């Protein structure tokens, strides 16, 4: 009985640390992205009804889109592509950014100068324009999208993690670790990284939101994920005519984007206020 009570208490939101809340919310989206499409009642490209922009009904719960395809199924696939592309690109940008950011605290000054100038250079191109430019050159394959988003947000991650790492590198326990004769990798992995985990997590969350916004904007402009694949932005784009009829096909994907980004932002806001 008491075991169950503790179990329930652990499930209560207020009992979770902010980091656990961020990870929990993100985990929910990731599970939905991976498993969601298995529960889709129809194939995403299958035209199931002659009625386009059909309202909600028991046959297709969320109605149909501009070609009479099942919106619910397409939405599940759209979440998959949006979340997975953005997760991969965030992993890329934050991985590169954090590695470079920490590494340049220990390398000679000229390495930091070069890295800093390069990052400033990328930062000096507004992100949407940078994405347009890269897509014009390399096309809009999924890999190109992931790498584009990844590279665009690397400088931000680099700056944040460098600032954090510089502060930590001045701490006494780092001096102690160096004096103990620890290797550079040990110091990075065991001393620096664990101590910047909290602020870093908030930064990663922010980059993820930026990536979702940029990808949605790109797809909305028709330059992101291409048919037959579908993501949330392209779902809005293809159904935008339904706006006139107040169709769910255009409103629901926008709501999903909003829930995804605002939700993560709110949880992050909660972590930074503490």
């Amino acid at each position: 009985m008491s075991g169950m009570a503790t179990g329930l208490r652990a499930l209560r939101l207020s009992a979770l640390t902010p980091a656990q809340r961020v990870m929990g919310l993100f985990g929910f989206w990731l599970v939905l992205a991976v498993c969601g499409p298995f529960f889709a009642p129809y194939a995403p490209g299958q035209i199931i009804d002659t009625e386009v922009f059909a309202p909600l009904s028991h046959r297709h719960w969320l109605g149909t889109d501009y070609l009479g395809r099942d919106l619910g199924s397409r939405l599940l696939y759209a979440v998959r592509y949006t979340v997975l592309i953005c997760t991969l690109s965030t992993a890329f940008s934050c991985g590169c950014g954090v590695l470079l950011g920490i590494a340049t605290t220990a390398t000679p000054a000229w390495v930091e100068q070069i890295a800093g100038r390069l990052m400033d250079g990328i930062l000096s191109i507004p992100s949407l324009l940078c994405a347009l430019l890269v897509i014009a050159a390399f096309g809009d394959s999924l890999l190109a999208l992931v790498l584009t988003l990844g590279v665009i947000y690397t400088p931000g991650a680099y700056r944040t993690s460098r600032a954090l790492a510089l502060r930590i590198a001045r701490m006494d326990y780092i001096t102690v670790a160096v004096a103990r004769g620890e290797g550079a990798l040990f110091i990075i992995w065991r001393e620096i990284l664990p101590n910047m985990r909290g602020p870093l997590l908030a930064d990663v969350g922010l980059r993820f939101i930026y990536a979702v916004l940029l990808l949605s904007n790109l797809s909305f402009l028709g330059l992101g994920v291409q048919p037959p694949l579908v993501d949330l932005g392209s779902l809005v784009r293809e159904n935008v005519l339904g706006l006139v009829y107040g169709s769910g096909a255009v409103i629901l994907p926008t709501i999903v984007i909003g829930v995804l980004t605002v939700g993560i932002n709110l949880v992050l806001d909660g972590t930074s206020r503490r």
Partner: protein
Amino acid sequence: MNARLARLVLRRIGAALCSLLFVVVAIFALTAALPGDVADMLLGQNATPDATQALRHALHLDQPLWLRFMHWCGGMLHGNAGNSLLTGRPVSEMLAPRLYNSLLLAGATTLVAVPLALVLGLACATWRDSVFDRVMTVLTLGIVSVPAFLIATVSVFVFAVQFRVVPALSDIRSIHSVGQFFLTFAMPVATLASITMAQMIRMIRACMIDVFSAPYMEMAVIKGVPPIRIMLHHALPNAIGPVANAIALSLSSLLGGVVVIETIFNYPGLAQLMVDSVMSRDVPIIQACTLLFCMTYLFLTTLADIVALASVPKGRGA
């Protein structure tokens, strides 16, 4: 203006020029990385080897990369950005009217957004944690965390489709009176301004709260300085630098917003041309548009940094 400040400003301008060089190289490099040959693309399937060769020569494609880069830079400096691959017209001729339209849109938005954001941001910071501040925080957080097209499509749905107060498309050729001008610009400017303002308000609020928490502010309150005087003499002079930076950074988000807004409202501006060109892979236009946008962005951020430098008495040497 003294020597110390001048040196700092010159250094900042030098850094901006370095960034500009990076941007120019990046823009050129990406187009050089384009798969396929422009000459093949232009001539299509029934190209003879001779014709391809002649066109390659005419486009300087047979020259080494660095020579082409110099050619390209030289052309840009003289305002000659080449010809459109699609229409064959000079890029500068296609860009000029569009640039004017975009500047009109961006200018109108800036005029609306900056003063409003300043007032609202200051109010939020002054009455921190009040109901007003909380409502603004939720509102601005909501706006910055949804994509730009969402706000635009929703407002089109509400104001143009449901209430029919404004046109859904911005056909600026049909403007004949002042009233029409305001109606046509109302939607794009309002949506663009709300996106830009949300960013600005958040940043200005953060800067002002930072300034308010400084010891000299507490000192001013303790020695009984009236609130207006605290604001004008103690808080604002110290906030000019960060606030200028916040405004410049948000205006750069306006550049990104412009791309989406112009497409949605079918506004004949630079950004719409750029999106169309990316779809049709019309490289010279993409290059020229990106360069224009990046130069604007660099100009804004550099200007903000210079204002920030000049606003710090330490920098002035006073």
